[in-house]
């Protein structure tokens, strides 16, 4: 894989995937057709700070759910590692294992960091039809927070309502 990959942009069809969410359960992006999905790629479980990226999103899941959006975390860690991490941090959303072949989905989305051997911190908001509506790759070492996700979900809501006859509010 070349190192010139770029993050998939808004307007692109989101590549479908099937990954393990637990050692005996898989999740596909297409399972969520009809509602928005937030894909949050991150480098690794067990980052040594309070309120790291996944812990922060865990605190504001209810805000994402107000937009009927599902949050999926993705890293190259294996399902057992995710299991332990999610249990330790009391996470209430799935962590997907982009583990074998390692980083395949991160590469498809253009966010694999070749030299680190992990995904970058990258965010995608995907609409109910499976089209990427917003994407963002954070600079190395910077946790992007959630402000961009919420703005993208609000913009998605606004455009959905504008397109609907009668403009439901």
């Amino acid at each position, binding site marked *: 894989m070349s190192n010139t990959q770029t993050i998939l942009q808004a307007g692109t069809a989101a590549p479908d995937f099937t990954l393990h969410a637990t050692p005996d359960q898989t999740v596909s992006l297409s399972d969520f057709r009809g509602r928005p999905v937030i894909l949050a790629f991150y480098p690794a479980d067990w980052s040594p700070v*309070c309120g790291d990226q996944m*812990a*922060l999103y865990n*605190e504001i899941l209810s805000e994402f759910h107000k937009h009927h959006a599902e949050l999926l975390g993705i890293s190259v860690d294996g399902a057992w590692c995710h299991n332990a991490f999610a249990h330790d941090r009391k996470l209430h959303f799935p962590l997907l294992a982009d583990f074998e072949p390692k980083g395949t989905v991160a590469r498809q989305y253009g966010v694999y960091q070749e030299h680190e051997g992990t995904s970058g911190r990258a965010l995608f908001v995907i609409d109910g039809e499976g089209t990427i509506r917003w994407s963002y790759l954070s600079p190395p070492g910077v946790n992007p927070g959630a402000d961009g996700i919420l703005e993208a979900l609000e913009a998605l809501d606004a455009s959905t309502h504008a397109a609907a006859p009668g403009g439901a509010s």
Partner: protein
Amino acid sequence: MIEQQGTLRPAVSDDDHVLGPPDAPVTLVEYGDFQCPHCARAHKVLPKVLKRLDGQVRFVFRNFPLAESHPNAVHAAEAAESVSARAGEQAFWRVHDLMYDHQRDGDDSLDDAHLVRYAEQAGANPADVALDLAGDVYESEVKADFMSGVRSGVNGTPTFFINGQRFEGDWTSADAFAAALESAAT
């Protein structure tokens, strides 16, 4: 459509807890959690930094309790707001300091009984603060702080904003932190 990420909103106002001159050239905002060990560490660094910047910094504290990680953090924030409302801003800063100074005393050092004790030491009536905690009187105020942090791009605790922009640099070293603030002052 998407504004620049990591921009403070809303701006600092009279509703905030503010230390330092209102016309200071630098405004430093911290989103913090009273049960977060990194925030307690920052609490030790900040006085050195503010002293070095002598009068050039207006410091603002906003609540960002990570309830899932820190079971006592929301009540600690509510207790601080209660102290502020009932005993004034000087008492708020005293209880803010007490919570961080005692955070690591033991597993129960931020339970309701201790929070009420710190409130009393800070100058508030402990029965009033206990009542406010029991009734979650300041729950919505703390939640509003939290959501303003989310909308501003807070990405963990503590998160600092210097003149409205998220600070990505090193706050663990007083030298580095002071240097960042000094460059914002000029």
